[in-house]
């Protein structure tokens, strides 16, 4: 029984609670580095490594870190691991380091990692936390890979650098193509979810770790009404 639930911790991140396609977290790297399949794998593995390590350490320290300073503490731990991963990538795979560029250090502010720390690792023992991190990381990598393959295939007519198609639709590796492919993938995930009888989670803020703090900004995932709602509506009417 125990083994079965541990296995479930691992698999839930891959399909059911896929961080990118179902929870819609970590959109920045998803859009930015998926211009080719190999970039997507590089980013996925780097983020998975950070996620597993930070989940493990945060879970170990969950009783030591005071509640009030937990977010800065988590960010510091995550930043430490990101620096280690950054140095390893620089040393062993400089090509990936060059192609990921600024997005490698930006794993620090990837909301999947802070989100799992806040929602899972801070409340659960070490082993499930590691498996949760691994599952979420694999789910993240799989989603990135899927998107990277679609964009590389359509945009440069190749897969993993091997030329397949003579036609190249350049727009798919440019920023607009990123937004478009991501939108279509989420639409597909929504359709599959609805078919399976589940309600699709497609609010950009619903899975965000900071959603409690920003409830006043009326993120779409949160339903709290602002006190000056009437004023807001008036302005919105003016916009339309």
């Amino acid at each position, binding site marked *: 029984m125990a083994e079965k639930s541990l296995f479930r911790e691992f698999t839930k991140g891959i399909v059911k609670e896929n961080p990118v396609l179902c929870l819609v977290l970590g*959109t920045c790297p998803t859009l930015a580095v998926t211009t080719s399949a190999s970039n997507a794998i590089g980013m996925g593995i780097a983020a998975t490594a950070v996620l597993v390590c930070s989940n493990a350490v945060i879970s170990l320290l969950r009783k030591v870190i005071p509640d009030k300073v937990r977010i800065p503490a988590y960010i510091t731990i995550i930043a430490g691991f990101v620096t280690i991963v950054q140095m390893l990538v620089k040393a062993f795979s400089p090509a990936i380091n060059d192609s990921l560029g600024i997005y490698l250090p930006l794993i620090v502010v990837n909301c999947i990692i802070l989100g799992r720390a806040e929602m899972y690792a801070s409340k659960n023992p070490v082993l499930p936390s590691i498996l949760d991190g691994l599952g979420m990381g694999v789910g993240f990598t799989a989603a990135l890979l899927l998107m990277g393959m679609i964009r590389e295939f359509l945009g440069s007519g190749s897969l993993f650098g091997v030329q397949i198609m003579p036609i190249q639709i350049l727009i798919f590796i440019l920023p607009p193509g990123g*937004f478009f492919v991501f939108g279509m993938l989420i639409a597909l995930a929504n359709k599959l979810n609805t078919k399976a009888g589940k309600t699709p989670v497609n609010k950009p803020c619903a899975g965000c770790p900071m959603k409690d703090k920003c409830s006043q900004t*009326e993120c779409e995932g949160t339903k709290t009404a602002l006190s000056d709602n009437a004023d807001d509506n008036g*302005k919105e009417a003016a916009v339309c």
Partner: protein
Amino acid sequence: MLIKSLVAVFLAAILTENYVLCKFLGICPFLGVSKKLNTAVGMSVAVTFVMVLATAVTFPIYTYLLLPNGLDYLQTIIFILIIAGLVQLVETVLKKYIPSLYKSLGVYLPLITTNCCILGVTMLVLQKVTTTTAYTYTYGHALINALGAGIGFLVAMVMFAGVRGKMENCDIPKSLQGLPITLVAASLVSLSFLGFAGFVDKLIPLG
């Protein structure tokens, strides 16, 4: 030459290298807070403010403290801690001394710590110091670049809030409702910014 390069950096940050639509930094607030024009403007002003302030602090710390001592590998940790501390400080100062401003911007501040466009901008301006060859990229350029990035964020948010307002009453296929159609709309807005490619280089030729 200095004025010319400053204007070029400012325009490039807004139009040709727009941080949201061309570099994908700060997508979460772009998708999440852009539904209403006034929240979009509030968030953008707060982001611009923190962006300039963060660059003003991190640029000298990196150039005069970390780099000469061979500590540049600590960049990620130090920068994120500086940004987190700065946001907290700004929040406290605003709350105590300028309550009216705190009321309008304060709610956005806690969000900004983990916003990747702030950390992204502070790191990208430092990369430009070594990669810019046409002129010397100074502290002033970095600050103007950060300001331009913030204004670019504002422009993108305001444009997008308008587009979303138009979408409100449209008949959208069921599986595309919500986030998917928002992303497709973002794709079109981003497409319009592709038209600016090469615009600044032609307008203000440098070196």
